[in-house]
């Protein structure tokens, strides 16, 4: 356990010293939200205040943008010799990897807190009760945890840092093809079906329901099931890839 916290401290120092990761993880989602709300969003025909609609989607997008940093961090550990040093020191492989996951979750939570703060300034008025907020936090942590394990696996599987950077692009694209920015019903046929059945739509709809104070049980079950599945696949894949790479 103590080696895992040491490794977490290391990973967090990396983040603080990497301006690109901070920009991608914290500032870029805010820039996107400002663009959608003040530039593009006016053209959308969405009931209610648009900032109330988009904030749950932006929370998920923030998680996804943060993940590119996780993939890169994991990959550069593997491609530079330092991982062999840790292996020879008999630090458990789960300590190295779970430190990356913990750092990733922590980064996302900080970025999301900043994002929600900015959204509140922009007029975001959630109707969530205290239990709803607990549900929001729980789901955000679960989704971040799940996607972080999956991204750790992607970062391990990538041969070079360049491909690790590229590998996280689909993760960033997925929320755009969900109900994050606009409702799925407004999309073209084909895209709409994809949006309806991909994991981020029930996750975002659950968040939206909780923040509006109108939680939807069906979406929540799908969201939790998707998250658990992604976490499990990511975890198993990450561990077996880690074992294989010398």
């Amino acid at each position, binding site marked *: 356990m*103590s*080696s895992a916290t040491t490794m977490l401290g290391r990973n967090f*120092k990396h983040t603080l010293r990497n301006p690109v990761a901070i920009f991608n993880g914290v500032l870029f989602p805010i820039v996107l939200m400002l663009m959608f709300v003040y530039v593009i969003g006016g053209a959308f025909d969405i009931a209610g205040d648009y900032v109330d609609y988009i904030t749950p989607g932006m929370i998920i997008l923030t998680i996804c943008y943060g993940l590119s940093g996780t993939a890169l961090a994991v990959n550069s550990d593997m491609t530079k010799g*330092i991982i062999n040093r840790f292996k*020879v*020191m*008999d630090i458990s492989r789960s300590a190295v990897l779970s430190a990356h996951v913990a750092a990733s979750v922590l980064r996302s939570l900080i970025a999301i807190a900043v994002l929600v703060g900015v959204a509140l300034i922009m007029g975001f008025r959630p109707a969530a009760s205290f239990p709803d907020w607990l549900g929001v936090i729980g789901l955000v942590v679960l989704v971040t945890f799940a996607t972080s394990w999956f991204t750790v696996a992607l970062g391990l599987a990538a041969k070079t840092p360049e491909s690790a950077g590229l590998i996280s692009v689909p993760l960033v694209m997925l929320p755009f093809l969900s109900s994050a920015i606009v409702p799925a019903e407004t999309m073209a046929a084909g895209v709409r079906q994809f949006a309806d059945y991909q994991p981020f739509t029930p996750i975002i709809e659950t968040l939206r329901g909780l923040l509006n104070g109108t939680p939807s049980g069906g979406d929540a079950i799908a969201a939790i099931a998707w998250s658990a599945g992604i976490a499990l696949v990511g975890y198993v894949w990450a561990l077996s890839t880690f074992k294989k790479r*010398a």
Partner: protein
Amino acid sequence: MTSSAIAATGLRKAYQDKIVLDGIDLEVAAGTIFSLLGPNGAGKTTTVNVLTTLMKADAGTVRVAGHDVATDTKAVRAAIGVTGQFAAVDDLLTGRENLKLMTDLKGLRGDEGKRVVADLLERFDLTGSADKMAATYSGGMRRKLDLAMTLVGRPSIIFLDEPTTGLDPRSRRTMWEIIRQLVTDGVTIFLTTQYLDEADRLADRIAVLDQGTIVAQGTPAELKSQIGGSHVRLRFAGDAEIEAARRILTGTTTDAEDDLVLRVPSDGGAKSVRTLLAQLDAHSIEVEEFSVHTPDLDDVFLALTGRTSEKVNA
């Protein structure tokens, strides 16, 4: 058996159908420097990876510090330190933070950890750059930091995989000094190198690795003796002199490349050289050029494998 720090028998390793190690036997006595010498691609790094538990051999047994690497991995890892071919330092941490990472992971907390870090920075002459990020370090400094990190926790056996590859001559000499110092502290060193002079200068014993097999093993002197002793080269002005010299000296051969050069077996010592020159002087034979040739490990490699090491590299 207790005195050998590393003992390997019958090591084999293949990647798919490419055989990398083809039956390697090694024995390294505690407190000595052992050098595994070979060109690129000979299997040096694979050997290190197997000995340091990073890789499992397909066959063979390895005992390091008295523990079996396959069944007692933890005990082996507790006893060894490894500095790989590429400096395993964390670029985004400072030199001091890199060392602190090691002391934290080794469980050296508080003041003890701080003292170990300060001592290592001092010893490796890194105190001045301790608070700069490792990314800004020169190649030589990175190697030093890398080795300093390896020394945290005082391993009794240290593996150095090509520790001076890519270093400038001055940094190389510094590294050699550090390695010699470690051995006087009682540490066992397993060193791989493709530099023949490096093995010659540092090692107590050398094993020459070629295409996955050890083609020779022994002290540097023993290896050199395998290709015959040293000799004196005499260059003469013309055929008359060389003929005269050949009549009075025993065991001479003509040099293959220069037919005005005569090779005379000799131990290269002052006494025998003086006798030789006196003999020539007594017959008034003029010598234009004179040199003593002691075989180096390049000659060993050529004699053992039929190729020069450069040819393999090319």
